[in-house]
């Protein structure tokens, strides 16, 4: 019978703490950029103008239909060769995760905007409001409320995807655990601890999301 020994992890919380900080930094950066970019691309997807719609559609399809791990490898190993200078693991991981998040967010924005009844557009237009004002004052405030559950689900997915950055040696949680396990020969404890940390952070989030879903039905 294997004897679990979490003593090393408890005595050296710095390992996982450093990893968690990096995970959160990567998460915050890719979520923020992904959402902002997603709004712009979602508008492009919603637009009937070809020169806006086409690039947005290509972006969305490209990043939704390729694995994030491949995107991350590509940004870290391939892109530097093309542009002539190397990227830090943090930059490459953020680019891949933000690109992926933006593609998903764009589709949520587009669907949310489309779900608003056309009467809202007509009423605002009949009052002499411009497209930009209608979008900002009338359509988006209503659409975003409907998008909250979908966004929350993507946000939780994105949090889990940050662990992929360990493959390009970004020192987030999983990377720290691998480092520790190779030094201490305690893979069971190390990887169990990472799973526990993710669970402790994400479980309350999923509960909050579930609450949102109930509220959004009203």
């Amino acid at each position, binding site marked *: 019978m294997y004897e679990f020994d979490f003593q090393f992890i408890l005595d050296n919380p710095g390992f996982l703490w450093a990893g968690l900080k990096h995970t959160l930094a990567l998460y915050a950066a890719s979520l923020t950029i992904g959402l902002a970019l997603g709004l712009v691309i979602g508008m492009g997807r919603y637009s009937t103008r070809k020169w806006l719609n086409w690039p947005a559609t290509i972006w969305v399809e490209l990043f939704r239909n390729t694995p994030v791990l491949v995107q991350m490898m590509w940004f870290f190993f391939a892109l530097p060769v093309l542009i002539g200078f190397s990227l830090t693991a943090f930059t490459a991981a953020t680019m891949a995760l933000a690109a992926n998040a933006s593609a998903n967010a764009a589709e949520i924005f587009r669907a949310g905007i489309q779900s608003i009844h056309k009467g*809202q557009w007509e009423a605002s237009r*009949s009052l*002499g*409001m411009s497209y930009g004002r209608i979008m900002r004052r009338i359509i988006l405030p209503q659409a975003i*409320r409907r998008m909250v559950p979908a966004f929350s689900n993507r946000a939780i997915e994105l949090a889990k995807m940050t662990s992929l950055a360990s493959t390009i040696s970004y020192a987030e949680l999983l990377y720290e655990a691998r480092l520790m396990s190779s030094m201490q020969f305690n893979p069971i404890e190390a990887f169990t601890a990472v799973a526990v940390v993710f669970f402790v952070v994400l479980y309350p989030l999923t509960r909050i999301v579930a609450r949102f879903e109930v509220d959004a039905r009203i």
Partner: protein
Amino acid sequence: MTAILKIVDIHKHFGDNEVLKGIDIDVEEGEVIVVLGSSGSGKSTLLRCINHMEMPDGGHIKIEGKRPDTGQTPYKITERNLLALRRKVGMVFQQFNLFPHMTALENVMEAPRQVLGLSATEARELAMGHLARVGLEGREDMYPMRLSGGQQQRVAIARSLAMSPKVMLFDEATSSLDPELVGEVLKVMRKLAEDGMTMVVVTHEIGFAYSVADRVIFLHEGRILEEGKPTDILVNPLTDRFQQFLSVFKEFSIPESS
């Protein structure tokens, strides 16, 4: 008298379906015109062409003597003139289309604040006045969801009025209301007419047409078939079509006791 709104040879088609086949109407200032017609006659499309919710395919309009379009063929209008036109022409919809995330007061304040650039205090005062005008004092802070259909439609009327339009368009404003709520909206519309508002009203309320309209227009298959004073043409329609249209309403009316 000069026409505040001139509709000149307006054409509109959707695909192969020609909905308006050349409509000419001069609307005098303060005049109330009721447009009647069976569904598919083009009456809603006519209203929507006036404020350019639909672009006319041919012809043009003049508002206060000026053409908003560029005068080119095919029909073209600049964004600037389009927004200016819609500020002058208010529209009330069958489905109210209130902004559900705003209170009654905020619904009415929105365009004066955003489009006319009024301060919050000015817009609030203006909105309170218009809500009072449609009989909704005390309901300012309620969200549309909490209001009855008739109240919602009155908020929508106040929202349009807050932009001080030159002309108001009513697109079957009472058609989606429960019968007992129709009256309160018609009363507000009659009061507006009495206050001198220029109105073009698409409705199925023949009684309203009879008692409020200065002129009734009967539209059939995209053309004006009859036009005249309500006391004339509603009582003595000239064409079989209009006769037929009106007979449905007469068939189910309560005879007056003698």
